[in-house]
């Protein structure tokens, strides 16, 4: 199934809502560490969930450029389009 940027964003919001007990209002500029307080273990849980959702193997090195939900969605879009 083709995933547009908006589809990816929506799925990412869904995963975060499922993963976190208390979720503030999410938007593209939500910072994964500063706003959601994800620690390294939580980030790895998020990566696994996203891998399963999009059938990807996500390299950890791309996370160095990921700060916000928008950054992550854009990286995912690149990976999905490159498949």
């Amino acid at each position: 199934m083709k995933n547009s940027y908006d589809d990816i964003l929506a799925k990412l919001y869904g995963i975060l809502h499922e993963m976190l007990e208390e979720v503030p209002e999410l938007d593209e500029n939500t910072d994964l560490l500063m706003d959601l307080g994800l620690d390294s273990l939580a980030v790895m849980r998020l990566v696994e969930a996203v891998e399963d959702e999009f059938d990807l193997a996500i390299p950890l090195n791309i996370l160095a450029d990921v700060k916000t939900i928008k950054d992550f969605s854009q990286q995912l879009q690149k990976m999905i389009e490159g498949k």
Partner: protein
Amino acid sequence: MAFFDKLRPLAEARQHLADLGVDTIHVVMDEILSATEAVINGRRSILVGTNNYLGLTFDPACIEASCRAAREEGTGTTGSRMANGTLTGHVALEKELAAFYDQKEAIVFSTGFVANLGMLSSLRGRGDVILLDADCHASIYDGCRLSGADFVRFRHNDADHMDERLRRLGDRAANTLIVVEGIYSMFGDQAALKEIVAVKNKYGAFLMVDEAHSLGVLGAHGRGCAEEAGVENEVDFIVGTFSKSLAAIGGFCVSNHPELELIRYASRPYIFTASSSPSAIASTREALKIIQHRPELRQQLWENANQLYWGLQELGYALGPEPSPVISVRLKEAGKAFSCWRELLKEGVYTNLVLPPATPDGGSLLRCSVSAAHTSEQISRIIAAFATISR
């Protein structure tokens, strides 16, 4: 942002530890009495956190070889393997390691950490993929970063999870380098190498096994986890360290791939580091002989490991999944781990305190590493100390 702001969170964390009266980084061994005892804070203590698996740090033959090398060849090489730092001992040790593992090629590095950095950064590069077990050592993660390759992790010791990632990599799976450890340093569990090899073969990938904690510990000849699992011919690269069972410092890689020799020309951590001192190389060569000729040390190590594992389990402690020379007591709260660690030290038992984020599961550990040189009475005293602390 001020120049040192990056370090501010560490300063705060250190202050928090100091307020609790804990300073694990600055534990000083005032006097080393033997492979298993030291004086710490003026107290005679049993060492059960030193990775000295075969207890060879005070072996007379190793000490004599080390002293002789220092007298005859000096205290250091003062140069890289690529320049003036290759002495006859370095070459001899490479041949002896290749013969020990029955592999065609061997390279000696300056430390085990450098061996991982040197191998991973040279074997793979931008556009390649490295697949690593989530619980791999920091040197493996750093080697992946240095390589510039895409690195993907799979769930610890889960061959099915690894299989799933390889499937998703599609055409890239065939040249993927998989990296696992023989025995994992935090919980002491062994790699599921048979299952991992089966998946590796399914995709035509390559496999590196870090035997840092399993050399001298596993296998009929002490070659490690790959020997124990009967898959030595299926492993492409074995890396390891001289700083645990071999009781010195240094690292190595052995392989049947003739291309290993080319790593000497490609690996910056090999080229731009001074080589191991003659004394470290000489004692390592002696220790390697001992691993081959004294299998009873391995047997003693496992007897001691079983005694401690089952003794701690009987006390109700949460431990790793199987008896192993690495036995970690798992505690949920860091504060409780601090106080237990401190109480143990007061009881004359030195363990390693391991705190998040260095732990795989976010919990805290009192990590024990057993030695063949521990006596049964020492192990009993360690268990008795664990029985007295308030957890």
